[in-house]
C-alpha cells in the first residue's frame, strides 16, 4: 500500500495553502513532514486523509484516487491522529479504541439487536483486539477510565491506539509529541518504530526537527505551501536551503 500525492494544490479563497506538492509514502517507511508554522503541513495532512478535496492534483492510494471523504479514506486504510487531541472524552478508553475498529467490524444493526453467536464472537474479537492495541501503546488494557480523565501523554497514546485499531496501512500522526517532555518523546519514538515493525507506513508532522531526523526514513520540508527539499534525513539536515528556511523563520 502506497500513498502518493501528485501535484496537489489547495486554495482557500485567494490564499494558496499548498502549491504543487508531490510526495510518496512507501510501504513500511516513516516519512517526516517538517516546516515552519503556516507552511501548510496540516492542510497537506487533511488532503491526504480525505478531509479536503485538493483544488488541483491527485491523491492516490495504491494507484487509485482517494475519495474526498474521511470515512472512505479510513476504510481504505488511512488512519490519523489530531494536532489538538480529539478523543471522545466521555467514552471509556476501550470504547474509543473500539470506535477506531469501526471499519473492520461487519456486524450491523440487526445483528446487534439479535445478539447471535456471530455477533458475540465478532464483538469479543474486537474487544480483544482493542485491549491488545491499548497494551501495545502502553496503556492499561482494561481501558475502563473515561478518555477525558487520562493524563495528557496517555491521551496522545490512546489516539494512536484508536488509529491503529482500524488495521491501517498508513498512519498519519499530527504532532504526536507536542507538549511532551524528553522521556515521553523518547517513548513515542520507540512506539513509532514498533508501528513500522508491524508493517505500517507512518507519516509524522513535527516541529521538533531533532525528533524527525532521528526517526524518519525520509523527510519532506514544506515552506509556504511548497515542497522545498526532500530526501533522507542526513541529506535534508545538511541542506543549506533548509537551514536558511528555519533560521529565516526563527
Amino acid at each position, binding site marked *: 500500500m502506497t500513498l502518493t500525492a501528485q501535484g496537489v494544490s489547495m486554495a482557500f479563497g485567494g490564499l494558496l495553502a499548498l502549491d504543487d506538492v508531490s510526495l510518496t509514502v512507501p510501504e513500511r517507511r516513516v516519512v517526516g513532514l517538517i516546516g515552519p508554522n503556516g507552511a501548510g503541513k496540516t492542510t497537506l495532512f487533511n488532503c491526504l486523509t480525505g478531509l479536503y478535496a485538493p483544488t488541483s492534483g491527485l491523491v492516490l492510494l495504491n494507484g487509485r484516487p482517494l475519495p474526498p471523504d474521511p*470515512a472512505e*479514506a479510513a476504510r481504505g486504510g488511512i488512519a490519523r491522529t489530531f494536532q489538538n487531541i480529539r478523543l471522545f*472524552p466521555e467514552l471509556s478508553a476501550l470504547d474509543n479504541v473500539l470506535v477506531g475498529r469501526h*471499519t473492520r*467490524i461487519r456486524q450491523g444493526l440487526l445483528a446487534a439487536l439479535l445478539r447471535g453467536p456471530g455477533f458475540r464472537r465478532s464483538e469479543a474479537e474486537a474487544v480483544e483486539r482493542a485491549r491488545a492495541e491499548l497494551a501495545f501503546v502502553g496503556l492499561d488494557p482494561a481501558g475502563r477510565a473515561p478518555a477525558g480523565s487520562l493524563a495528557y501523554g496517555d491521551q496522545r497514546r490512546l489516539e494512536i491506539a484508536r488509529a491503529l485499531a482500524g488495521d491501517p496501512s498508513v498512519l498519519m500522526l499530527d504532532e504526536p509529541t507536542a507538549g511532551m517532555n524528553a522521556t515521553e518523546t523518547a517513548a513515542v519514538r520507540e512506539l513509532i518504530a514498533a508501528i513500522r515493525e508491524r508493517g505500517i507506513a507512518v507519516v509524522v508532522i513535527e516541529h521538533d526537527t531533532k525528533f524527525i531526523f532521528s526517526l524518519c526514513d525520509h523527510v519532506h520540508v514544506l515552506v509556504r505551501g511548497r515542497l522545498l527539499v526532500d530526501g533522507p534525513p542526513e541529506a535534508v539536515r545538511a541542506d543549506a536551503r533548509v537551514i536558511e528556511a528555519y533560521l529565516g523563520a526563527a
Partner: protein
Amino acid sequence: MTSTDTGSTTGVRGPVTRARRSARSVLSVRSVRRVPGAVLVLAGALSPWASVVLPGGAYPDLATLHLFDAPHLVTGFRLHLVLLGLAALLPRAARPAGAGVLIIAFVHTAFLAALGAVSFGGPVALAGGALLVWQGRREPAPRWPLPGRAVVWPALAAAFAGLLWLVSATLTAGGQSRATNPHGGAEFLAFLGFAVALLGILSAYGVLAWLSALAERHRTFSVAVLLGCAMLLPLTGAGTGYWMTVASTIGVYAATAIGLNIVVGLAGLLDLGYVAFLGIGAFTAANLAHTVPFPVAALAGAVAAGLLGVVVGAPTLRVRGDYLAIVTLAFGEIFFRAAQNDLGGLTGGANSIPGIPPITLFGQAFDRPVGALPAGFLYYALTVLMVAGAMAVLANLKHSRTGRAWLAISADEDVARAMGVHTGRAKILAFLVGATLAGLAGAVFAHKLGTVGYESFDFSESVTLLAAVILGGMGTVPGAVVGASLLFVLPEKLREFSDYRLMLFGLALILIMRLRPKGLVSS
C-alpha cells in the same frame, strides 16, 4: 449501570475494615452529634401536625390530633419519619435520611399552611432534618464483594421484589384522585421524599452499586425476574383498573422516550418535534383499526413512523447541531398543523378519530378483565413487554458497532468520520430506529385510548418527552423509563398543580442542565 465493573480486590477488604471503623464510630463523639437531629425528627413525627380540624376531611395518618394522642400508632408519613429518624443513627444514613425528612416535613408543612393550619410537628421535624443533613458525613460508599451463585439469586429476587413494592407504593401513594383524598398530593410528594431517602441510604452503603453490578453480571436472570416482578404489579395495591390504565399510559410514553433517547442520548441529535412519530404511529393504526388485526396495524404504524423518521433525519446529512434541532421543530410543527387541519381526511382534525376498537387477540378484548385480574391488565402487560423490548433495543445497540458510532458522532462528528463512520447513514439510522419505536408506541396508544386527536401531539408533548430523557439521564438504559414515569405520574398525582405543570418542566430543564447535566439516574 453502564460500567461492567464487578468489584475489585480492594472491595473485598474495604467493607470489613470500614465496618469495624464505623462500629467504633457509633460510640464516638461524632455519632453523638447525630442524636439531637434524630431525636428532633422523632419528636416531630410524634407531635400533632394539623393544629385544627380541617374542612373537607381529616388530615391523613391521624395527624389532626391533640398532643400524643396516639404516639404508638403512627402510620403513613409519620411512620416514615419515625423510620428515617431511627435510620439516621447509622453513620452513613444521616444525610440521605435527613434529606428525606426535609422533603416530607416541608411538603406537609407547606400543604397545611396552604390549608390555613399551623403545623406543630412540621417545624420540629424540619429542624431535625436540617440538623441531620448538616452533620451527616459524605463519604464514598463502600464496595462489597460479589457473592457466589447461592446468594445471588435470592438477593436479586429480593431486590426486585423491593423495587416492585416501591413502584406499587409510589403509584398508590395518596390515592387516585382529589375526590377520594383531598390531601393526596401532599401524601404522594411526601412518599417520594421517603423513597428518595431509602434509595439514598442504600446507595450510601453501596448496596445499589452492589446490586447493579450483580444484575449486570447475571443479566438474563435479572431481566427475567424484573419482567416477572412487573407482571406481579396487578397483584399489589396498584391492581385496580385505574392504576393499570395509568401504568400503561406511562409505558407508552416510556417506550417513546426510549426511542428519543436513542436519537438524543446516543446519537446526540436534539429532536424538538419527536412526538410527531408517536402521532403518525397512532393515526396510522387508528385508520387501519377497523380493517386489519392489531399486529398488522402496529407494524404499519411503526413502518410509517420509521419512514417519517428517515424523512426528518435526511436533513442531518447537511445540517448540524443547533440548526438540526430547529429543523426537527419545524417538522414537528408541520405535522401538528397538518393533523389539526385534517390533512387528507386522515386525522379527523378537530373532531379526532373516535371509536377505535380495543386490541383483540384470540377473542380477548384488551380492555376487559381477565379472570381475577383487573381490566386494563392486558394493556399494562403489553406496554411492559413493549418497554422491555425498547430497553433491550437501546441496551443492545449501545454496546455495538452502531451504538459506538452514534456515541462517537455525538462527541465529535469530524473525528467519527475520520474513524471511518459514515456519519450521515448512522444519523438517519438513529432517527429510523427511534421513530420506529415511537410509532409502535403510537399504535398501542391509539387502541388503548380509543380516540386519537391532533392535540395529543403538540410541542409541549415533545418537550415533556425530552425532559423525561434529560431527567433520567441521556443515553442511559433505565433513564428514559425513570424520567417518563416521573413526568407522567406527577401530573396525574398533582392535579391541583396542573396549571404549573409546564412551568415546572421548563424550570426543571434549566436546573438539570445547570446542576446535573447527566440526569438523575447517572448518579
